[in-house]
């Protein structure tokens, strides 16, 4: 699990570089997210590389949202691949998250 971070003004876009976010990597993901969640308020997850997410991956992303929300921040998601979007819809997470087609729309939504 390697996360890529780019800042656009006060919005941090985190790109998940691996193509999988399942129970085998979710621990790493959470560890790598911890400092980011501590320092940032406006975060976008760019998930364009991620072809596979399982329930633990959904749970981890949800956990990020909750952490940010608790501090007055927010998390937006963008560029979901087809199978990942299907999973989000299955577990009704499209109603919990703001999901955007691409990074620009997600970043722009903060302003």
């Amino acid at each position: 699990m390697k996360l890529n971070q780019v800042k656009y003004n006060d919005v941090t876009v985190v790109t998940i570089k691996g193509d999988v976010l399942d129970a085998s990597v979710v621990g790493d993901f959470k560890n790598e997210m911890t400092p980011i969640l501590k320092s940032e308020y406006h975060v976008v997850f760019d998930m364009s590389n991620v072809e596979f997410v399982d329930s633990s991956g959904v749970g981890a992303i949800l956990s990020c949202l909750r952490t940010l929300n608790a501090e007055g921040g927010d998390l937006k998601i963008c560029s979901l691949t087809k199978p990942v979007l299907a999973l989000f819809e299955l577990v009704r997470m499209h109603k919990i998250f703001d999901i955007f087609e691409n990074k620009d729309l997600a970043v722009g939504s903060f302003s």
Partner: protein
Amino acid sequence: FNDDLTCVAVRIGKTPAEKQGTEMRILLNSDLRELERGRRFVREAAGILPNNRMAAESVSQLQLAVTEAITNIIEHAYGGEGGNKIEVVAESYAEGIQIALHHWGVAVDPSTVPPPVFDGSSEGGFGMFIISNSVDFVGYSTDEQKRNTILLIKNSKK
């Protein structure tokens, strides 16, 4: 366990999995790093029949169900303990794929598991719901030798 199974498990990483007609087997360790091999196994089982036109979407759904089932076996049935075995047997049909996951850990009675909470307040509890909704049949059983089976069926045609 017999050694043949272990042998298959070792070889599947490099060559196409051992094929017994339309049946395939793999032996996994109770280690989450095995999830990727579980998914690769599903992909191979989906490709085993020339006329098995399982849609990519259906293959993904079956991979998701298998991932959730293996994770549950490792984390719940085996309590996260390494060194335990999961035997996965796939039977491919033109009409679909049957995957049996065998383990020797704690059995679950799925009727006692509450449905998930969808309001964002809970980060877990989605696994069994995802399994049920990603395949056409899921069954949990335990035999007299305490071998548990999670059986998944995915139709080729949706």
